[in-house]
């Protein structure tokens, strides 16, 4: 469970939000409305006022790097620091299975990062982010560089993460994605955040979903 209390800085907020374990929520809003900055703020990569609590553990009482092992921000553009893909991972059977599910070949672990396509890098960065099983995932447009097939694969893995109890926030411009992980969503307009419900008509209605405990 993640509980966000009056989280704000110069760019966004204040945001109050509670997500149960295993619950997902789509974060919507135009480019520049504060979605990314909000997620960075939750991960403590940017300075914020307010408090965030994960499973009774308050962010302010933990060191920041331990916090980021629980609360994982995954940016839209992936970054790599070793020469080969595999050096960024600890090899495991689970990793190989997940790679195959996303249409990646295990042999790609031996490939230099520079030879990968943007889409391959995005999928691999997602796998890298879930490898140590964080309790909260903050995904910034996790399928922005992917085709429909790979998008479905990543979405299935996001659901698998939720099934093991991970709370997931997904910044997305895609209505399909919003429906899949909705109906509740957090909408940003010029930094101000509001919980809304996506109606079948595609319109947004104020207030959270009745089920699911989004506050």
């Amino acid at each position: 469970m993640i509980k966000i209390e009056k989280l704000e800085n110069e760019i966004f907020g204040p945001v109050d939000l509670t997500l149960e374990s295993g619950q997902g929520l789509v974060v919507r809003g135009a480019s520049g409305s504060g979605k990314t900055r909000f997620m960075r703020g939750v991960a403590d990569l940017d300075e914020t006022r307010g408090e965030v609590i994960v499973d009774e553990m308050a962010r302010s009482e933990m060191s920041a790097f331990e916090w980021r092992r629980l609360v994982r921000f995954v940016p839209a553009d992936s970054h790599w620091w070793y020469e080969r893909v595999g050096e960024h991972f600890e090899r495991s059977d689970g990793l190989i299975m997940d790679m195959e599910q996303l249409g990646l070949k295990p042999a790609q672990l031996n490939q230099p990062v520079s030879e990968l396509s943007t889409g391959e890098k995005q999928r691999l960065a997602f796998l890298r982010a879930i490898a140590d099983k964080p309790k909260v995932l903050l995904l910034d447009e996790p399928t922005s560089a992917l085709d429909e097939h790979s998008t479905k694969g990543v979405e299935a893995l996001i659901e698998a993460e939720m099934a093991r109890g991970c709370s997931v926030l997904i910044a997305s411009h895609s209505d399909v994605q919003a429906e899949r992980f909705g109906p509740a969503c957090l909408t940003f307009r010029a930094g101000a955040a509001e919980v809304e419900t996506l109606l079948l008509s595609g319109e947004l209605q104020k207030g959270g979903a009745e089920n699911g405990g989004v506050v």
Partner: protein
Amino acid sequence: MDYISLSFFDLALAALLMLINGGLSIGLGLGLERTLLVNSLRMTVQLMLIGFVLKFIFVQTNPLWTFGLALIMILLAGREILARQSYRLKGHQAYGLGTGTLLMVGFFCTLFAIGLLVQPDPWYSPRYVLPILGMVLGNTMTGIGLGMETLTTSIKSERGVIEGRLSLGEPRFVALKGHIRKAMKNGMMPIINAMAASGVISLPGMMTGQIISGVDPVDATKYQLMIMFLIAGGTALGTTMGVLGMGFLLTDERHRLRLDRLKTDET
């Protein structure tokens, strides 16, 4: 000691060589005439001035004169470090980090040389303290400045990588490890290269000076070696402190990257 003193007429003759530079600049349209003139005048004035200042301080018995000049040298070297940075920190830390590092390294190296190696009488004898400090400062300054410059530019250009590593839960100095290593290497390379070249390709200035002034070449070599070791040690110490200090200031206690602490305008 028997050495041949130069007259001001000799100097004027030597300065005539600058006409070659000037002629080239005009002939090839390099546009350097003004800079050449200003810089050679500046050099002449600076060196003559320091000559007279040293002459004055050498006859003073009060060590405060020595320390005063030492302090001024450190402050000026600190300014030189700042001048070589493409991206500067905001506020007093911009100047403070480099100068503070020089202060510690300069004092440590000079006291080490004076107290344990040369042991002049009195121990604060300006004839030994000031030239040793000067050589240590001149070289460590380069290492510190280069190391800090490498670190800030590489952090700035690889912000995504560093924040990517921080996002995965790495502490700040783990996330910065590669950048710090590269910066320290860059800072120390000049002195390491100088050690390999000295004696074969170049005769170091201090040794040359001592030999001309009549010192036994082997004695002069020993002094030069001591200075080289001092400089190498001081550069290692100073580069480490400067680079780690910069890494510390460009992150915060919540292990965030703080590029907002750099001035935005490129200088």
